[in-house]
């Protein structure tokens, strides 16, 4: 019977496809959170497989901080066109302009937390009852407690101490009006699994993930990409380095690492020897020990 044993990637893929089909079956109006990062690209690829030969039956939802890598936006638009899906954008800039949120000030100001409002407002405006995310339990200790189907109350809040138990492969997506769910089909994947899968499936990813020459500054122990949003502080200087990004988010808080890995194969090799978590280069997670849990409770991804 040994020929009926699935490899780890096949098993993870089968699980994720099962979750995506449950989402489609149990909810009325699902959105797939698409950031242009490798995890959401992987989820999009899995969704394509889950519903083949039909189109992906989800609206793609991009929460746009206004501080984007230009490469990410181009990648997003090309993929949307290729898949023939609808794109909804939750704009942080609009939320600021409308006065729904205030831009943070101070040395470490970022638009990270402001995404919560843009996300929740879009979910409400578009009547999404579930948002599918590329969150993984290995990313962060608060995420290690996430369910595949994760309930959010009418304020979009997560209550980690009163989560519904999730047994076998039986998911409970029941909710009251005004509430919604988050669904995480790749919960059980690690960063390494995602990279191995991208390599195996030959999935196209933004070139930012591969080593390239870039103008950067050294700030908070990471190479931050130089952009129009960065104001140099005393002692900081712009340098040219060969870097790549392990995660992609807001350009003002996503740091890169020095690397020569300019092909997926080399990235996979590098990741397997990595001694730092990928979120170590994200200043949004460095604010406090429980910053992810605190943001997630308010409605963050």
């Amino acid at each position: 019977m040994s020929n009926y044993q699935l490899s780890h990637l096949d098993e993870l893929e089968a699980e994720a496809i099962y979750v995506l089909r449950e989402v489609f079956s149990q909810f009325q109006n699902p959105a797939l959170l698409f950031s242009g990062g490798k995890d959401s690209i992987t989820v999009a690829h899995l969704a394509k497989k889950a519903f083949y030969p039909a189109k992906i039956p989800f609206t793609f939802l991009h929460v746009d901080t206004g501080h984007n890598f230009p490469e990410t936006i181009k990648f997003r638009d090309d993929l949307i066109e290729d898949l023939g899906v609808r794109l909804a954008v939750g704009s942080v800039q609009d939320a600021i302009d409308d006065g729904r949120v205030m831009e943070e000030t101070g040395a470490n100001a970022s638009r990270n937390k402001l995404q919560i409002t843009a996300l929740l407002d879009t979910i409400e405006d578009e009547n999404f009852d579930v948002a599918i995310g590329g969150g993984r339990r290995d990313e962060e200790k608060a995420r290690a407690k996430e369910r595949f189907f994760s309930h959010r109350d009418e304020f979009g809040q997560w209550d980690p101490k009163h989560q519904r138990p999730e047994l076998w492969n039986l998911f409970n997506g029941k909710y009251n009006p005004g509430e919604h769910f988050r669904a995480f089909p790749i919960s059980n994947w690690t960063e390494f699994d995602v990279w191995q899968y991208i390599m195996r499936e030959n999935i196209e990813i933004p070139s930012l993930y591969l080593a390239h020459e870039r103008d950067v500054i050294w700030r908070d122990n990471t190479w931050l990409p130089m952009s129009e949003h960065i104001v140099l502080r005393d002692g900081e200087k712009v340098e040219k380095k060969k870097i790549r990004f392990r995660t992609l988010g807001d350009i003002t808080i996503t740091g890169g690492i020095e690397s020569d890995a300019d092909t997926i194969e080399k990235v996979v090799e590098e990741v397997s020897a990595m001694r730092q978590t990928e979120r170590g280069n994200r200043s949004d997670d460095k604010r406090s020990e429980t910053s992810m849990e605190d943001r997630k409770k308010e409605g963050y991804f």
Partner: protein
Amino acid sequence: MEILRFTTAGSVDDGKSTLIGRLLYDSKSIFEDQLDQVSETSKRKGLEHVDLSLLTDGLRAEREQGITIDVAYRYFATPKRKFIIADTPGHIQYTRNMVTGASTANLALILIDARKGLVEQTHRHAIIASLLQIPHMIVCVNKMDLVDYDEAIFEKIQEEFKEFAAKLNLKDIRFVPISALKGDNVVNRSELTPWYSGETLLHTLENIYISSDNNYIDPRFAVQTIIRPHSDKFHDFRGYAGRISSGVFRKGDDIVALPSGFTSKVKNIFNGMKEVEEAYPPQSVTITLEDDIDISRGDMLVRPNNQPEQTQDLDVMLCWMDDQPPRPRAKYILRHTTNEARCMIKDIKYKMNINTLSRIEGDKSLHMNDIARVQLRTTKPILWDPYKSNRITGSLILVDEATNNTVAAGMIRRKK
């Protein structure tokens, strides 16, 4: 490389967190920044050692109280296998979390303190593993360093456990003498236990044979959704999407759709974008049939000569998970495979003492963490197999219509 899912249960002092920490650390699955963070927090709390439990206890409340409240999932990989740990608290008030962690596990890891031997918690964990039909069990006799690596102590605990386990339904039990703190027999073979000829814990985890854990005998395919592309290229395409619960489906197989009873043949099987000859658990596939028959979500494709039970009365071992007991005459939503029905709890036959396996007769109440043998009556027939032979078609959950909470998990038994 395959995946092995295992569950652990235990409290802070039996060394569970230390053991998990060691497996993660020795397999290089802990990152430097995670370790730095944990060391810093340990120091701030005034601890002398690095408290590896802080790696697994992620929520603010857990870190403040120093306990595991929920199931935490942890990941590590060796060149041989990828491991998913469902790390659960061991206290009786978290029985429901242990049951949750056990529901998807191939293997249960049980820790016994060599100084204390079998305690109530040991019995509880073994009973839950048996109820949830976890196929394999490794019993780690831990803290061997504190009993001078005494073979007699290890032997005695092993004998006691075997005697207790004889009452249970556990097929594959292995024993390893370890010291999680010192690392003996965890990843590397210890020189201090020359009398132990078995394998190390990690070696066992890497090599235990799990291919036969799935049921390849009884073909069951619960339909999740219907795929209808309505495109020019796939104009008449009608596919049934779902995950193979058990058994093998091949092109050309005769099938019967339940509950309708219509028969047809498997025309094509798609795994993603690829057409394949056969499908087996736990693959997610799309199946097309030769004939256009009426099939919807919740229906099941099976073989004509191998069919599940179809009844409205279910004999169930139920774990109650909600903080509110069932309301009198309450109706619940029963979720089973991709099917849904309403049901009521008709009778509570007996409750189980989860520490001793003895029956508590006459008590008709159900509280959080109780495990009871109950009789359920559903509004329509359910297509089931006994949990003992099929963990997918033999399991169910109950959802409260008033609160939407998942209030119970059940395992269906064959009626006597």
